[in-house]
């Protein structure tokens, strides 16, 4: 079975129970101050863009999730990690 290259994104963000002062500052001192009052919340996150060789999308996602868990790419004490395919 052949493999293809997939672009995979890991989005690492802090759990919702943890305050995000950077997001709060952007919301309060930029977004709301300049009148975008419909914006009710902002959370910042870290994005890793990976290129992964895998037989299919599912296994590419699986491989990246395993790597994130094994290497503590995100810290499970405080963060969550979302994986998504962004293209190939």
């Amino acid at each position, binding site marked *: 079975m052949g493999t293809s290259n997939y672009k995979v994104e890991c989005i690492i963000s*802090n759990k919702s129970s*943890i*305050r995000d*002062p*950077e997001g709060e*500052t952007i919301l309060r001192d930029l977004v709301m101050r300049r009148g975008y009052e419909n914006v009710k919340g902002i959370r910042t996150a870290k994005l890793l863009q990976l290129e992964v060789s895998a037989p299919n999308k599912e296994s590419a996602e699986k491989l990246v999730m395993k790597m994130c868990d094994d*290497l*503590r*790419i995100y*810290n499970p*004490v*405080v963060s969550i990690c979302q994986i998504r395919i962004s293209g190939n």
Partner: protein
Amino acid sequence: MKVAIIRFPGTNCDFDAYHVLKNVLHLPSDLIWHEEVDLRKYDGVILPGGFSYGDHLRAGIIAAHSPAMTQVKKAAEEGKPILGICNGFQILAESELLPGALLRNAGLRFVCKWVNLRVDSTSTFFTSGLKKGTLLRMPIAHGEGRYFLGESEIKNLERKGQIVFRYVDEKGNTTENSNPNGSLFNIAGVSNEKGNVVGLMPHPERASEKILSPFGSSDGLAVLGAFAKTVEVMARK
């Protein structure tokens, strides 16, 4: 009898720690590059402060995967005293040798100032000679020092006496104003269950000589001195 001070690319408090051990406490130590670590002949370990691997991804995480840390884990299991200062604390937390995580400061800025610390646990190798409630004055210098741990785990930590240092005001009270980085319950340092591994954000090595500290504080010696005593005991075993 010897202490290993482990250096990673970006470590910058290594010589301060070395100086205090050598010239103030007269405790022999070696500065060791993280790729050349062999801890078998050492009786204690210091992970000094700095910015290992440029704090990339997260402070301490890349160093936590260094082969040196496999040996530090082994040394910890053997009961050797291990002290992580600042970035060293972050590395120990990321290595899961200590509970919790260190998030970006609540104020989003690097904070460099002197703080008051209260000793809340004396069941560690680094505070064993001290009285509970002792106040120590030391500087902090970090951007990621906001201690966090889940609610149920933090209760466990408290119960087992693993919360070692707290940021307090001059009277020894934990107040919001005395908390420099938004740490949960003003926590500045914690230990593992056995009490042989301790990490703290403040810098005892920068407060170990009256002549070098702006407030004449040598309170850091309370921690490093207790460490030195433990190392002596370990070496005799």
